[in-house]
């Protein structure tokens, strides 16, 4: 009748399987696809990522040289990263931290017509 007893007693005398999350985090796996970020200096605003994205979370304006991504729409599939011709899109190994407000990642780079080495602005 009490076939579960050994299992729960084993649990009782072992460490908990859960973690007290914000205080204690697991080390990210090397292959994990986490937070998406763009090295805006290298970006040429070709819009490949925006076109390939299955969830259409990326908006690129070639003229204004802006790149924005809605992280709440992004599904972290990594298609944009694979297709980026400049290899300037990357994914970190860990996830974005939970937040209470929606936000959009907005990045402004330099238009590539004029060749200059000015600092990219990030807001």
């Amino acid at each position, binding site marked *: *009748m*009490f*076939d*579960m007893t050994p*299992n*729960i007693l084993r649990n009782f005398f072992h460490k908990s399987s859960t973690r007290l999350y914000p205080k204690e985090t697991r080390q990210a*796996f090397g*292959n*994990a696809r986490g937070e998406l970020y763009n090295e805006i200096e290298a970006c040429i605003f070709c819009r490949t990522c925006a076109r390939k994205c299955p969830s259409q979370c990326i908006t690129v304006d070639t003229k204004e040289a802006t790149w924005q991504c809605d992280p709440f729409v992004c599904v972290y*599939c990594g298609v944009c990263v694979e297709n980026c011709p400049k290899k300037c899109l990357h994914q970190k190994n860990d996830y974005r931290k939970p937040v209470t407000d929606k936000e959009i990642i907005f990045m402004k780079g330099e238009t590539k017509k004029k060749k200059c080495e000015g600092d990219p602005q990030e807001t």
Partner: protein
Amino acid sequence: MARTIIPFGPQHQVFPEPIHLKLVLEDEIVKEVVPALGYVHRGLEMLADVRDFHQMIQICERVCGICSTIHAQCYCQGIEELMGIEIPDRARFLRVIWAEIHRVQSHLLWLGLFADAFGFESLFMQCWKIREKIMDINEATGGNRVNPSINIIGGVKRDMNPDMAQWVLTQLDLVEKEVNHLEKVLLNDYTVKKRTVGKGVLTREKAMELGAVGPTLRGSGVEQDIRQIGYAAYGELAHRPVVGIDGDAYSRNRVRFLETLQAIALVREAVSKLPAGDISVKVKGKPEGEVVTRVEQPRGELMYYIKGNGGKNLDRLRIRTPTFANIPPLLSMLPGIELADVPVIVLSIDPCISCTER
């Protein structure tokens, strides 16, 4: 007590997803059932009209959160058939590995939910605790916990190097050990048997007639499993469908439990036979024509009908998920049983409602 109508769902604790069953009861005995769907209908089939056929992979994955890889695999398989692409051997084996890892994950999730349906909280937690190891495998190999997104048209996206494969096997050994600890509980425990044996009986004939699929069909004693067709690399791996006899909730539970162990064995075999070579081929052209393709999902037979018109969008994508096929058998199981057994029987077909409605 007189005739009562119980609104079972759409928001009910036992259902992981919203479905509404109108139960007409007499003295806690179910007399009639009328289902209502449509609470999570997302129109994913229609998205094939506006997204190109490569992007549909990720969308197909999201038809179901639990068997995501297998949906994508089925879709890719269909498109490959349409375009006449032969995928490399290594990719075929890798697809099997990920699909079977997903099956373990899905079955453990189900075993937990099933335990929850008859109020066995600690068993539920135990199953989900074991499942967490599989989610880690998914994340470490595929990149994400739930939707690893490793299938692409023409093969797979990621390779598995020998070190990684070895790590997966050791993790699976741990999982198998823990699953074996649960065998006595799930198949022998007095209270579990009391709640499952003889509940929701679906005879062999009825199962065939009503078009049941997957463990629901096999639990009734029909030896049918789409993996027998030998899609992907299943033709080269040794496996036989797990079959139950009685067709009750206990039998379906037993089938799923044994399939969990079988899936682990299949991963081991696939890893040992993993051939060297490329993992994908270059894809050129656009799909044209129509095709029906099927794979075996943890819940049963999954069918995709794909019609391409030579453009980048598909003409029609039709997804028939296993739960859709299992709802008519469910309706035949419910009348005549106690209210207390309704959750157990509904859960015993492993309902995935967002799959059903897509």
